[in-house]
């Protein structure tokens, strides 16, 4: 038993496991990860493709090739940390706890990684201004506005979703901005600005300047005019991908299918033209492992800094002596 414990906590085992983990990770970056099995048969000769798929090298970081050495490393690190901590606590002076803090941080990081890997959930939603979505905890996220800010050269500068948060009819948060690098945290859920898309819509402008925006499948009726937005199609003869809307119009001097673009047409007293409506892509993430990871990162930082400071202090004292 004593011999087994000695082997379990040995630095030599740690060294062997570090070499295995580093070599495996290196291989994993050379083989495309997470693709369908057929893809590997297109990329490599049959024997190599079979080897990659059967051994799990195509999903290395969730395969036993990685998980077994990682688990052994966790056990070795735990045994080593415990052994070292006991030894340091037995000392009457010159205790050096930097490596202990670092090792505990690494152990917690692995725990956080496992919790994150098994418990992380995410979902995507697309919202146009005025639309809402119910969050799993019963709160309602309402998009007021989405803005796509650009630099002068056209490159993206910022994407911002302005939202309200409600629960049971009560406004919890008003005019909150969700931006890239500035997510909204609501309890265990975090909402990220993930993407955006532009959809073709039809704007119906009345003589009093009021505008009604129609999404595909929606209709407008007033003063004997009925406009139904049926579908979109590519403009014939235009290669830039510009789209036009296909409407079914009744009244206003027109009857039947009518095609309209950004130039617009008149239907009775109403100006009808296509417009772009921006939708925001918000990602909701729940990661129960992240609090562990955050604490572990702080411990790792403290542990490495403390180890260095103590070592430096010892060296300076030795030199003085």
């Amino acid at each position, binding site marked *: 038993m004593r011999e087994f414990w000695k082997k379990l906590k040995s630095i030599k085992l740690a060294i062997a496991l570090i070499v295995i983990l580093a070599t495996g990770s290196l291989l994993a970056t050379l083989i495309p990860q997470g693709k369908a099995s057929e893809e590997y048969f297109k990329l490599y000769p049959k024997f190599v493709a079979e080897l990659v798929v059967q051994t799990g090298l195509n999903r290395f970081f969730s395969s036993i090739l990685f998980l077994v050495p990682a688990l052994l490393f966790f056990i070795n690190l735990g045994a080593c940390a415990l052994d070292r901590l006991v030894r340091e606590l037995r000392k009457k002076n010159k205790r050096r706890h930097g490596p202990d803090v670092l090792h505990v941080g690494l152990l917690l990081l692995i725990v956080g990684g496992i919790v994150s890997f098994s418990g992380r959930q995410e979902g995507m939603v697309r919202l146009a201004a005025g639309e809402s979505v119910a969050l799993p905890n019963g709160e309602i996220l309402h998009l007021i506005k989405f803005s796509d800010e650009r630099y002068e050269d056209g490159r993206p500068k910022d994407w911002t979703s302005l939202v309200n948060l409600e629960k049971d009819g009560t406004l919890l948060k008003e005019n909150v901005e969700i931006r890239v690098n500035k997510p909204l945290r609501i309890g265990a859920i975090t909402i990220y600005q993930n993407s955006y898309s532009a959809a073709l819509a039809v704007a119906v402008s009345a003589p009093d300047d009021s505008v009604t925006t129609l999404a595909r499948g929606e209709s407008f009726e007033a003063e004997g005019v009925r406009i139904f937005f049926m579908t979109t199609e590519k403009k014939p003869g235009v290669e830039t991908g510009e789209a036009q809307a296909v409407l079914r119009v009744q009244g206003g001097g027109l009857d039947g299918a009518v095609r309209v673009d950004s130039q617009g047409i008149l239907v009775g007293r109403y100006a009808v033209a296509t417009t772009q409506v921006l939708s925001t892509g918000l990602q909701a993430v729940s990661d129960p492992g992240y609090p562990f990871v955050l604490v572990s990162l702080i411990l790792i930082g403290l542990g*490495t800094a403390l180890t260095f400071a103590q070592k430096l202090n010892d060296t300076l004292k030795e030199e003085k002596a």
Partner: protein
Amino acid sequence: MIATIGFILVIAAAAAQVVSLFRKGDKKESLSPWLMAAAAAAFLGVMLSRSVKIGFIALTSTYESLLFYSAFIMILDIVYRFQKKIHYSRIIGFGATIAALVLAAIASSPLLPKEALPPIPALRSLWLVIHVALSFVGEAFFVISFVASLAFLFTKDEKKKIDFDRITYTAVAVGYPIFTAGALIFGAIWAEQAWGRWWSWDPKETWAFITWLVYTLYLHVRLIMKKKNAAPSWIAVVGFLCTVFTFFGVNYLLPGLHSYG
């Protein structure tokens, strides 16, 4: 223009050291630290002026990263030359200057885009700046350890071996916590804020992890082996090659989330 002047100053510093290497005796060459200080100031000045121009800390493009990395290696080289605790031989100083020169040369290459562009939304984060800056500061220490470990492997003088081993070890001992904080800790915090995932096994992340494992290996092997053993020096060499691949190889060979940096 200022970057070009900086580049010329690094060349001059390297040339001054070449002359000094062929001179007999232990007399210290005193010109190159000033040339390198001026070159580092020029590179940091360029970064400052770009920061003002783009309205953000200019450390988001490959060009800016190269200038920062090169400048910090030179600053570190100067610090090592003026400290008196460890014997810092001329050959290590020269090696570090050559590393700074190579990085400055790549930055000066016409193939590398140099336009000062404000960052895209994902890069507009202070966490990113801390992540990148500390990673390069840590890697600058790894440059010193790399040169010292090469010197260890090539020398047969036992006394010099002890000196070179000491420089390698102290450089890794300082660089390792800084690199850990920069590449892994602040990288994970930034990734969580930007993408909602603190670790994605993206090629750059994986290579930073491999680099960290190799230096972890160095520290543990150094702990159990005799100081004159060559194994730790070989590991320090491999570790530095990993940092090079993480910076250049991954950018150009393995596309992923970090394909802009």
